[in-house]
Structures are given as C-alpha cells and as structure tokens.
C-alpha cells in the first residue's frame, strides 16, 4: 500500500517498490540497482531479471538529462480530461531514461528534442504526488 499516491491518477496500489513514493516525499526521484550484479533499473524494480536476485539499492537520479522526445496532447483518456493540454516526455539522465510530464512552465515554443532538463517532485492539489521535468535554473 502507498503506491496509490503516485501519479496524476493511480491505477494500482500494491507493488514491492512503494519505497519510491517515500522517496518522492523526500523530494528525491530514485532508481534501483542490484547489489548482486550491478544492473540498474528505472522504473525501479524489486527483482533483478539479470541474476534473479532481489537485493536492491535505491539511488537518487541527479543532475540534468536531455529530452529524447515529447508530445503535447490535446485529448486525454478518461480521468485526465481536466489536465489537457499537457506534454509527455522521455528524458535521458546519463543512461537512465525517465518518462513523465514536462512542466507547464516550459513554453511550447522552446520545447525541443535534446533540450536539457532536470526533475522536480510535485505535490498535486488532489493529494497525489508525482515528478515533472523542469528547466535547470
């Protein structure tokens, strides 16, 4: 329990990696790394498909990443209608690729592939918690 707090709208409450939400509550976005074989995972995982182990270390995603691609959506699935328009993006932090939304503070005109971005935790008005991509200050 606890994972239902993650995201603009949650679809599930149970996962063994709900420590991710605790991380967000500490303003940290984290990935996991297998202590046995060193394989890294984002999205974070409880189990390592490389060595079948399940001893994971949580590590913070720091610094800036570059925008791999994005789209600004004018229509939304059920439950997200009021958010429209919003921009979905995939950002590469030195090999750790993170999917999420771009901050609405970034103008449509300045959004472009390869622009530099960092992550920021966001507490939503509905009590949910998420992260978004912002411009480095």
């Amino acid at each position, binding site marked *: 329990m606890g994972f239902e707090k993650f995201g603009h*709208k949650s679809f599930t409450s149970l996962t063994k990696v709900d420590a991710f939400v605790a991380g967000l509550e500490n303003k940290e976005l984290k990935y996991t790394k297998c202590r046995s074989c060193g394989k890294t995972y984002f999205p974070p995982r409880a189990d390592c498909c490389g060595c079948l182990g399940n001893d994971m270390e949580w590590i913070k995603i720091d610094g800036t990443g570059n925008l791999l*691609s994005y789209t600004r959506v004018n229509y939304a699935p*059920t439950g997200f209608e009021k958010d429209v328009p919003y921009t979905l993006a995939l950002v590469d932090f030195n090999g750790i690729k993170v999917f999420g939304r771009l901050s609405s503070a970034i103008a449509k005109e300045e959004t472009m592939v390869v622009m530099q971005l960092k992550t920021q935790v966001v507490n939503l008005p509905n009590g949910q918690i998420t992260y978004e991509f912002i411009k480095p200050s």
Partner: protein
Amino acid sequence: MSKEDVAIIGVGQSAFVRGYQGSIRELAFEAYREAMQDAGISSVDIDASIICSAPEYDNQRSPAGIIAEYLGLNPQPTFAVESVCSSSTTGIKIGYSMIKSELHDIVIILGFQKMSKISSADSQERMGRGADILWESPFGTMMPAYYAMHARAHFAGYGSTEKDLAMIRVKSSKYGILNEKAVYRKEVKLDDALNAGLVAGPLKKFDCCANADGASCIIMASNAKAREITKKPVWIMGLGSATATMTMSGRDALNGLASARVAAKNAYAMAKVTPRDIDVAEVHDCFTIAEMMAYENLGFAEPGKGMELIRAGETYIGGKIPVNVDGGLLSKGHPIGATGGSQVRTIVQQLRGEAGAIQVPGAAIGLVHNIGGVGVYGNVIILGR
C-alpha cells in the same frame, strides 16, 4: 520456391463499421461465414479454433467459448489469444505451429473487436492501461501520444516532416475509397491532412486511424488438406515475432520499432527471402508515422530513408513496393483483434490474383506487418503462392 508445410485456404472479413448492431458472436459469424464459403468446407472439417481479441471492450468474458459455440465448433478445442492490436497474427503463428506440429490439420483464426459500446475517451483509457499502469499510465498516456513521441523522434533524427506523414494518409485514402469494407471511404487531400486539428503533436486527426467494429477469419490447413480442398493455397513462408519493453524507458530509441525490426529479420530468414523479393505489403498503419517506420523496420528503405519512398510514390501500385493498397488501418479502421486477419486476407487475395481494382500485377510474395501496442509486440508474416 515457397515452403509448403502450412497453407491458408480460406479468408473472410466483416465490414468494418462504426457501431455494429449485434453481439460479438454475430459479428464473428460474418467473417466466419465468408471464410467458410471461400474455403468450401463445413464446421466438422475444423479441428480447432483460435479466437483473437483484446478484452474489456465487451461484457462477455472468455469470448472463445461462446464464439466457438456459435460457430458450431464444439467439441473441438478453442482458446483466446491476445497481443492487443496484433492478436490475430499471433493467432496465425499459433495456428501454424499447431498444424506443423501435427496436433491439428485445419485451424481457424477468428479475430474480432467491438469497440463502439464504449466512448472514445474510455477506449483511450483502456489502451492507456495497455501501457505500464505503474509507471506510465499515471501520467495520462494514450496511443496517439506514444506514436506522436515516435514521430517527433523520427523528425528530429532523420528530417522527416508532417508533410511526409500527410502523404501517407493521402495514399491510404486513395485506396480506402475502393474498399467496400472500409469504415472511412472519403478522399483526404494533402491540405486536409496538414490543416486538421492536432491530436497529440505532431500527429493530427488524419494521422490517426479510427476505432471500428469488425471481424476477420483465416482458415489454415496442412499441405495434405490444403491440396485436397483448394486449387489456390497460399503458403506461410516465414513467421517472425518479437517484443520490445512496454515502458519507453527500456527502449534504445524512439525513431523506429525494434520489435518490428527483429520480427522482420526472423521472418525473412525463415522464408529465405529479402525485402526486395516482396511484391506487396500490408503494414500496421494505426498512425501515419507507423507506416513510415515500417518502411524502414522492414528493410524497404534504409533507416531514415522511408520518407523518400512516399515522396517518390514508390509505395503506390506501380511503385517499387506497394504498401496498404487496401487502404490500411487508416482507412479501413482498426478493430483491434480483427486487424491482423484483415491484413492477411488482403495479401491472400493479392497472391491469388483476386484483388480486383487494387491488384498488384503478378504478386507472388507478400508480407504482413502487424504491431501490438506501441511496438510492444511485432509480428511479420511472409506469404507465397
């Protein structure tokens, strides 16, 4: 020279429509009837059925059971198969394996979807839950958005443009007008496509296929049975299937679909042919960008050179490699579970020389490219006469 282990001996398809006025069993029957009449066999000849669709669009659970009953296919085995939009070509692969392994002689692959009972937003919500519900759906994902991200990456990496995508839609509409079973049969001009409203930038209205209700049915048989039943068997020469991660985070790049690339490589290897040997292809154009990526992932063009094919008209009939000359998903509509079977039907008609106004002269080897989700599942099938 084709492999001649397993053949397609009958094909059928319902009209693809906006709001089918019947139940899923009745919809399935429309495709079944046509395929059975095409093959000229009766239900007792069929050894097993494979029912292909994505769940949660209809209240009927375990549809394989009720559909097999309605088609008169008890006590023969049946089961349901799902790989979302590529479900029915996954069914074809399973059908092939069941015949080649000598478990069964004649198998039908019945794909269907009835999407009109739910709203478009609910439909996108379901497709959204076909993405990773832990890590991506909570951001409000939907299919047009994912494909739009691929389009943006393709533009950025290769210099392709919105106009290139619009040209793909213009081609689709040219052939869609000729297809009596297509849901969208109006002309789309280049300016119509370019000036339409944005759905998920850079994809606009005419870059996206429509939901539809529909069914398809493919009947497969062993060599011995096929020789007995039909004068025009179409052989399964090659099958390739592959996957990519469901999460975008796990992908190397968004300017193509790795699953399609691997599936194509495997299918060509099994068929012992190259992209240049393909006379006609059906590719999964759920969005215009999907057809563009297919040109490259299938080896019809080098990576980043797909736009040259459409600019030069090489994917029209008469070009180097005619693609989606039945209108594709963009014109026919995309009733998820039925789509792959409809693509196979078109290629079978082409190889039999029965494609009428859209016949590619002399077509001997054809290819089907059917994608599930945003390249999560990729199936490539090579057929020969």
